[in-house]
């Protein structure tokens, strides 16, 4: 077993893990943050997307020991109240892809200059959805991005209460 310290949704976490354990499993089964989903287990569907040191990554392909000393953000850092535009556009049906969609979109929102070189569809190509046909997801995200950071710009921002409000702190306490 390896003892691993990292920052999860703004809070320090220490876990003792087998080297074979995936970040996805550490989050879901050890820390009980079940927002992050497993879809394909091979880095294709994006349901397990987290933000790892500031970049979107598939937590099914990351052995937990690799996040030692790093920062990880999961969908639990986002308040459900902030997802109104996605609900309004029909971006969510079964919901399995939604946590990953939200995490990639959160990254795009923070780095909107990327839209100068990449289309939203290319940026979201790593988040597969079996229900919506994508138009709802793209419409919802576009509407929110075009809001330009006004009141709708808060949609995917971290809760104003900060990381203390997330379940990470409660559930991750050793």
């Amino acid at each position, binding site marked *: 077993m390896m003892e691993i310290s990292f920052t999860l949704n703004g809070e320090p976490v220490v876990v003792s893990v087998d*080297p074979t354990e995936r970040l996805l499993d550490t989050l879901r089964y050890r820390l009980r943050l079940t927002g992050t989903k497993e879809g394909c*287990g091979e880095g294709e569907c*994006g349901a397990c997307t987290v933000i790892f040191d500031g970049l979107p990554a*598939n937590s099914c392909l990351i052995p937990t020991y*690799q996040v030692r000393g790093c920062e990880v953000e999961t969908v639990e850092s986002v308040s459900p109240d902030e997802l109104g535009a996605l609900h309004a556009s029909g971006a969510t049906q079964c919901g399995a892809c939604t946590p990953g969609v939200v995490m*990639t979109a959160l990254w795009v929102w923070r780095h909107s200059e990327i839209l100068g070189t990449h289309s939203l569809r*290319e940026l979201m*190509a790593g988040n597969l959805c079996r229900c919506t046909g994508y138009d709802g997801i793209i419409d919802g995200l576009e509407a929110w991005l075009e809001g330009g950071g006004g009141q709708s710009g808060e949609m995917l921002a971290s809760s104003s209460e900060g990381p203390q409000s997330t379940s990470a702190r409660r559930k991750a306490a050793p």
Partner: protein
Amino acid sequence: MNVLLPGTVSEACDLLAAYYQAIPVAGGTDLFVHWPARAEDHGRTFIDLSGLDELRFHRWTDDALVLGALTTYWDIIGDPRAVNELPLLVRAARQVGAIQIQTRGTWAGNIVNASPAADGVAVLMAYDATVTLQCLEGTEEIPLSEFYLGYKVMRRSPVQLLTEIRIPKRSYDLHMFEKVGARAAQAITKVGVAVTRRGEEWRVVANSVAPTVRRCPTLEAFLSDGEPARGPDDLVGAIREDVSPIDDIRSTARYRETVLARLLYFGLRAECPSFT
């Protein structure tokens, strides 16, 4: 699974020598696919490279772009100079998986994973990249086009660490990368081809149509001769000399041969009017 965490390249080389056939790990995007189901690999020894900050760089020198072994696709996608000067690197990188893979997957990992379908390898080879291998005995630099000896067989001994990739800076008259997969995004290549031209000097590199990514010398000679092609069929003879596509889970030999001819013909016709 035994994980070793070296802090320097020299420590990593010590460990590669001490633990024969230990597996170096960078982003893990190939190594950890379907990981829980792969019990047979759980007992192996892995050398995790994520602590080797000395390999986390890419820099432009007077005559080359040098990628440290921890350079990701995303690092290059975000480099405006790469977009302008070595555009195939960016074009291929943007088609490897999606952003979640591009932020973790490394160019060096793409090379040593040795998949015949590797898009990153195809474009590096079209730019005459070389790789530097390091071990306790010293370093050697090998042209990427001579690195593969057969399916998953390469000129890297188990004690060597791929530390750098060097891409010569040259001006090219033509850059082309075409890829066909099952869909536009998130697909592993069924047929791929990277082409560059400097004057009469062509590089044609095909992926997913032979046991390794490989240069196509017959096609290169055909193009250097400047003989016009009347259609894709005129390229099939040269293609059969150069590659050996197979039927597998992703495609069939016949499809691959036909599509490679069409990608080359229509791609070159668009880029290079004298071709037809």
